[in-house]
């Protein structure tokens, strides 16, 4: 099996799963219980929080454990909006955010908020001057993703952070789900107030994640209750899930620089090879893009058909993002990047992981070539 859909989800690292299992049985207590069994769980939770904080170079009390990227993004955006609506009701985001950001913003529009969706250029980049123009006195939040999940574009987070920084009423949220472990991000130096990470994108387990919330930032809680996680996210702590997440974060961080080198090479080779194919147009920008994602379109071929044809060789890639893959129409991200409709409806995404080898990528390319040739003959 050649699994090249790691931006949709990754295979859990066996070590991570092992930590989960051990913690589930050995530390099953409720971390809020005052007896020894609760205390053991609480101690493990505290250690996990400290380690997560040190990996992100932030304070332990800035770590809010969540159930994943979607919850993190929703909590950050709705939490700011509902808590600070008295200060203003204007939000800025980009046109190529993940649905968990875009749709959250649309949900808030239904509640009376105003949202500006920044245009991007053909590489998917947000323009800083444009951002400056759109910033207003009543802007309370800017939410921009670090690495785009469909085409891999890396946004200039630090520059954006500096702009937001000069508006004391505005908070800055970064969706770091596709970035963590692939592209370094300095949270504090970039003036980030809120930052989302998801476990299952980094060989952790589904149902786990972190939202970084700067100490001074207050959020309206989406999970009121027992007051866990700084009263921002109540609920009996999923200690085993948290332990597994932190382990996945550590392993990803340790491998990061090596991975970056390896995947960057694979990516460039693949992009060069793809360029030689008729009908193929590459959508991932050459510069300022993450090492693990290559997006391209095969003009005139339905992307699902290409995917199913590759499945015969046990190769798994995807159309746009998993979240929107079941709606047959065009990719909003590619449209926002100014691509023609026939390119925007035929996008394919290869996304690699630390396990991906050169042989796999070569084999994929060879089979893709064959598949395109065969399908093209039929479609005329």
């Amino acid at each position: 099996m050649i699994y090249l859909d790691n931006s949709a989800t990754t295979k859990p690292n066996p070590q991570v799963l092992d930590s989960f299992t051990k913690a589930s049985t050995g530390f099953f207590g409720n971390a809020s219980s005052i007896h020894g069994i609760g205390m053991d769980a609480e101690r493990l939770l505290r250690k996990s929080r400290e380690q997560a904080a040190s990996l992100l170079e932030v304070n332990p009390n800035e770590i809010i454990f969540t159930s994943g990227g979607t919850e993190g993004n929703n909590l950050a955006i709705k939490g700011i909006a509902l808590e600070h609506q008295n200060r203003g009701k204007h939000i800025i985001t980009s046109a190529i955010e993940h649905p968990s950001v875009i749709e959250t913003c649309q949900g808030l529009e239904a509640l009376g908020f105003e949202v500006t969706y920044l245009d991007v250029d053909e590489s998917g980049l947000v323009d800083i001057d444009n951002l400056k123009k759109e910033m207003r006195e009543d802007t309370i939040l800017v939410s921009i993703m670090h690495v785009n999940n469909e085409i891999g574009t890396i946004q200039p987070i630090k520059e954006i952070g500096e702009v937001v920084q000069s508006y004391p009423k505005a908070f800055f949220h970064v969706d770091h789900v596709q970035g963590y472990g692939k592209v370094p991000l300095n949270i504090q130096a970039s003036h980030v107030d809120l930052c989302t990470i998801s476990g299952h994108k980094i060989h952790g387990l589904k149902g786990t994640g972190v939202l970084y919330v700067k100490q001074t930032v207050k959020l309206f809680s989406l999970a009121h209750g027992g007051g866990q996680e700084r009263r921002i996210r109540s609920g009996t702590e999923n200690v085993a899930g948290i332990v597994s997440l932190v382990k996945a974060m550590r392993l990803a961080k340790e491998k990061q620089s090596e991975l970056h080198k390896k995947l960057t090479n694979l990516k460039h080779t693949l992009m060069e090879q793809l360029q030689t194919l008729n009908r193929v147009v590459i959508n991932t920008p050459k510069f300022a893009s993450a090492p693990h994602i290559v997006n391209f379109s095969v003009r005139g071929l339905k992307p699902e058909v290409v995917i199913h044809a590759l499945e015969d060789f046990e190769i798994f890639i995807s159309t746009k993002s998993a979240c929107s893959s079941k709606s047959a129409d065009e990719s909003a991200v590619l449209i926002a990047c100014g691509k023609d409709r026939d390119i925007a409806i035929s996008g394919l995404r290869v996304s690699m992981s630390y396990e991906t080898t050169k042989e796999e990528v070569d084999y994929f390319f060879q089979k893709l070539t064959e598949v395109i040739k065969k399908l093209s003959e039929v479609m005329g």
Partner: protein
Amino acid sequence: MQYDHIVIRYGELTLKGRNRKLFTTQLAKNVRQALRNFPAIKVDKKRDRMYIVLNGEDPEAIMDRCQKIFGIQNMSVALKVENEETAIKEQALKLLTETENVRTFKVSTKRSNKEFPIGSQEFNQVLGGYLLSNIDGITVDVHQPDLEITVDIRSEATYLTSQKVPGAAGLPVGSSGKSLLLLSGGIDSPVAGYLTMKRGVQLEAIHFHSPPYTSERAKEKVLDLAEKLSFYGHSIKVHIVPFTALQQKIHREIPHGYSMTVMRRMMMRISEAVAEQEGILSLVTGESLGQVASQTMESMHAINAVTNYPVIRPLVAMDKDEIIRISEEIDMYDISIRPFEDCCTVFVPKQPKTKPKLEKVEQFEANIEFEPDIQEILSAIETVEIEAKDNQEEELGDLL
């Protein structure tokens, strides 16, 4: 209340004179088959009704399962009592006290056993009076009682039953022969299959699969639909036809306006051949008039011309709304609307002919050799037998 029987009443099939025995035998067979996961029960077939002797099995689960068996008009849980006044009284009292939320009741006696000493009118009074004097705060309501107790005095015993639950009606599957259903993943064809089964027909199904243009999910969807259908029979054989190469050839060789018509004709030819192999005498489709381009009168004419087999089209005169309503009722709608393409939408031409002419179709086909392709397809058909599974599949069931 510990009921010990379920009474099954036949309905329509009692009208069938000499064939009656055939039908009831088939029904008893279907009931036994459907209830094979309740090993303790016994099916006792009588001329005018059937009894399921529960022997401790759960009556509700059994009634649920029986609601998908065609040929049952209605059924009720029952308590068997000896033909003796005191015993009947005691058991009726027990039944009434142990049923929840009953404030009003009614007794109706049916005395087919004329040797029983008390007439039915009189027994209504006797039993009613007995119940009234033994339970506080309860009254008789002959119009809308909370509980109607039917006392059915027969030669072998008396059965006390409460409310009647409607069955699926129709005729027992297997009593009207066999047909081959052209099953796509859409809303229509499963409904057509269901309605045909309701007339007592056992089905096999044929599905046209075109990988990589159609996905495994599309195939799975069809198998899931077949499984739903199989609950109304015993099991359904599904013939999966590898259709890609032939579709590609049609796409290449036939003018695009006519490719849809030719494709449907190929499907009919292949279906007929499969039917013949399986000893099946007719085909079933989900066509209805005027829904899409292939369902105009001209189109139907051009497509039908390739077969002499009867083509059953239960939906032909139905509105879409009606079809959807049935689809929802029989729990297939949610499967049908799963968003995966089937082979018919793969090479949809921009402008299919809505009124194809038969001579022209025949002319286009005549120029090309399709027979070898059809023979190759027939030899490569994959057949799976889908059984009504009351329990989870092994592989996943283990996890859950």
